[in-house]
């Protein structure tokens, strides 16, 4: 609430600042604008920036640190018996306070100290918001007045504004880097915690996967086991089936569209593939689970085969269909990059169209096509919804496409959906899997993008 008010006030102040700066600059030279170093609107922007930017920075800083800060203050006021625990119980305590503060009731009867802490938390929060409003307004008005006082015909307003904008642009372009760093750090950090409990070698090369931790120590399989080989095998099986569908169909479709189809036909076919590419994965998942899987099972049963109702074949096939447009549009790009002069050379020798394509165009485009397939594989490995909805959950180590297998992404999704105990190896194992997934797909992408770039340079 206070934040909204602050934002509105800030917006108003910047508009006022702009007008103020502009008119004052004009007034400072008595209307002879040529005497100004920068045009009046830059003076306006100059004041507006001073009014808006510092307050906005404060706002961003507060938004990022408020929760933590307030929580630290609350925790420091609690008696030692509550605070002096290990990291896990401290996390639980934090969650309890937050839940109470947000009005979420849990089954447990809350400790009165914790209730008090929650109230304190809310109070501090409100106090923080109000002080933010007041301080923000003060800073904004102060900045506005300061900048207004500096308006002068010789003020290099344009250079200052442009330098600020330039810095802002650089920061925006760094967001991508920060995202990558964020991904790497969050995966690494949680995965390291996981590997502190589970031996990385056992994780990477173990053949038994059952992450369910028993509630009581005396139950069977209380330790859970985290051998991820069945997941990797399942992922590869489904990816393999998907590629067996997507590569021939996608490649031939690309060839047909770029070399054979008339322009009229192309205007019809291109949208079909684009629609196929635009359908959300959850829709493919629904189709795989409710239409394809029963169909595959019925066909298999009528042939006397025993087919699981969550067969890898159904999920893989639908994933393949999803990837067809991906393969075809990438192949289309690389096939079109093969210079016409090579085709002409082949036709000039009396080759037919298919001979030209098979013997000249495809070999010439091979690096690009290989890269396209690598990108498609990376896409298939990382695809989540189809396998979550249509593939199984039990980790079978099998190469039979009619059996149910589970995949890396399925496990990540199921491990992290629903009620989770933080810090349990079960939850953390999802980050271990995520790290493997990230490393594998990143490697595939890097290599593929590099190959594509080299290939483009060759024919440019």
């Amino acid at each position, binding site marked *: 609430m206070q934040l909204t008010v602050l934002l509105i006030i800030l917006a108003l102040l910047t508009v006022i600042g702009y007008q103020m700066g502009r008119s004052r600059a004009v007034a400072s030279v008595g209307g002879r604008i040529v005497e100004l170093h920068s045009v009046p609107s830059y003076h306006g922007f100059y004041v507006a920036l001073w009014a808006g930017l510092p307050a906005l920075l404060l706002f961003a800083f507060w938004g990022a640190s408020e929760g933590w800060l307030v929580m630290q203050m609350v925790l420091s006021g609690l008696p030692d018996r509550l605070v002096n625990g290990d990291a896990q119980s401290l996390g639980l305590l934090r969650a309890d306070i937050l839940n109470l503060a947000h009005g979420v009731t849990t089954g447990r009867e809350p400790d009165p100290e914790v209730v008090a802490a929650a109230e304190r938390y809310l109070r501090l929060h409100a106090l923080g918001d109000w002080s933010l409003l007041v301080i923000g307004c003060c800073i904004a008005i102060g900045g506005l007045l300061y900048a207004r006082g500096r308006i002068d015909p010789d003020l290099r307003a344009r250079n200052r504004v442009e330098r600020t904008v330039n810095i802002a642009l650089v920061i925006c*372009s760094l967001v991508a880097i920060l995202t990558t760093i964020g991904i790497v750090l969050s995966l690494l950090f949680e995965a390291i915690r996981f590997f502190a409990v589970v031996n990385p070698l056992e994780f990477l090369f173990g053949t038994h996967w059952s992450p369910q931790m028993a509630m009581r120590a005396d139950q069977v399989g209380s330790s859970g086991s985290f051998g991820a080989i069945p997941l990797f095998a399942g992922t590869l099986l489904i990816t393999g089936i998907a590629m067996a569908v997507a590569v021939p169909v996608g490649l031939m479709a690309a060839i047909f569209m770029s070399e054979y189809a008339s322009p009229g036909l192309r205007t019809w076919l291109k949208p079909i593939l684009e629609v196929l590419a635009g359908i959300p994965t959850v829709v493919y998942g629904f189709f795989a689970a409710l239409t394809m899987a029963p169909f595959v099972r019925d066909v298999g049963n009528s042939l006397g085969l025993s087919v699981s109702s969550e067969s890898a074949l159904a999920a893989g096939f639908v994933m393949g269909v999803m990837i067809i447009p991906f393969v075809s549009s990438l192949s289309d790009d690389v096939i079109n990059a093969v210079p016409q002069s090579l085709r002409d050379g082949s036709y000039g020798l009396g080759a037919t169209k298919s001979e030209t394509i098979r013997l000249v165009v495809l070999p010439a485009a091979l690096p690009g096509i290989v890269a396209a397939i690598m990108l498609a594989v990376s896409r298939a490995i990382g695809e989540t919804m189809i396998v979550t909805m249509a593939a199984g959950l039990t980790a079978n180590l099998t190469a039979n496409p009619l059996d149910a297998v589970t995949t890396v992404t399925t496990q990540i999704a199921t491990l992290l959906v629903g009620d989770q105990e933080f810090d349990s190896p079960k939850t953390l194992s999802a980050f271990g899997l995520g790290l493997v997934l990230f490393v594998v797909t990143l490697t595939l992408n890097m290599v593929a993008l590099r190959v594509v770039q080299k290939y483009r340079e060759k024919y440019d």
Partner: protein
Amino acid sequence: MSVAVTKSRYQSEEFSARLRRRYAAERRFRIAGMLAVGIASLMLVVLLGSIVSKGYTAFWQAQIRLEVTLDKQQVEERNYTAIVRQALYAQVPAATDRATRRSLNDLLSSGAPYELEAMVNANPSIVGTTQTVWVRADDEIDQFMKGFIRRDVPESERRLSDVKITAIDALVANGSIRSTFNTTLFTAGDSREPEQAGILGAVVGSALTLVVTMLLSVPIGIAAAVYLEEFAPKNRWTDLIEVNINNLAAVPSIIFGLLGLAVFLGFFGLPRSAPLVGGLVMALMTLPVIIIASRVALKAVPPSIREAALGVGASPLQTVTHHVLPLALPGILTGTIIGMARALGETAPLLMIGMVAFIVDIPGGLTDSATAMPVQIYMWADSPERAFTERTSAAILILLAFLILMNGLAVFLRKKFERRW
């Protein structure tokens, strides 16, 4: 015209035979190509066909007519369940014994008393009168009316008992069952009861998420693209940013979900299931798409425009904001809309940050618990009831309609503002 009498090897019979074989191979290759395109088209038709055929019935819903007597005392006791039941028994006079009547209770949606209550609250003057109202039937009655529960199946394997079917027949006979447009689907939040479930909550959740995504990714994406394309020096540092953006565009979406879980929920302590967090994650995910599309659009503006502007003394920033950016805007906009459409259909990252929860209320703010349309589809797809399968398909159709709308807008913009230099 002098005619050469000698024939070359290419006019020999042997060559002709070979040529026929070569043309046969040519035809086979061409057919393989057509087959590939055919398979792709067929799969699209099968996919859409199966969803439409499963989903179109969800747009209709069976209703039962009741003559409710709004007894003053019962209204005061808020005993609407009794009112509704009495009216129902009156509609089926044949049902007299307790057991039959009890099974009749299941004919109505469990939401029927609330519907009546809302009606009375809206118009208290009707208390004490007898009103004709149409209330939603239970989903199984609805499925029966649509023919998905078959009468000729033995009772033990059927979800509806013979008693109920007899009662339904009686209701049909006196015109007390009708099929109307299913407005609930568009105006309600989620529910455990299929006939009371709607996707409005998910639509609002998606809209809130997209607003956050757009507010963050569009300005940042365009700014980054402008910097990289117009101002950045070509050095190893900008190369790194470029490689990084290209790679980020190919990172699996579930990884972004893990990032959101670890950083936004774990580190910054933002609330779970909130559109705010969903929007943040989606913004990071669509950012590379927007940057890449914007750079392509900026690249398409010919250098002569920049030279002309710089030539009359504009600063580099003025050149970009006054000349280059407006010319590139249609392309940027198209890329942005396509990025947003992708974000709208994305599910996996939202699962990670807890936007997969049973939420009845329609979210009112960025930090309320919410789901999104694709997540709603995912959850409904998991429900065993036949009526939910139908609604899942309908929800998919609605989601696809939004996507078609967005992509159509992108195509329209591209066509309208397309400019060849």
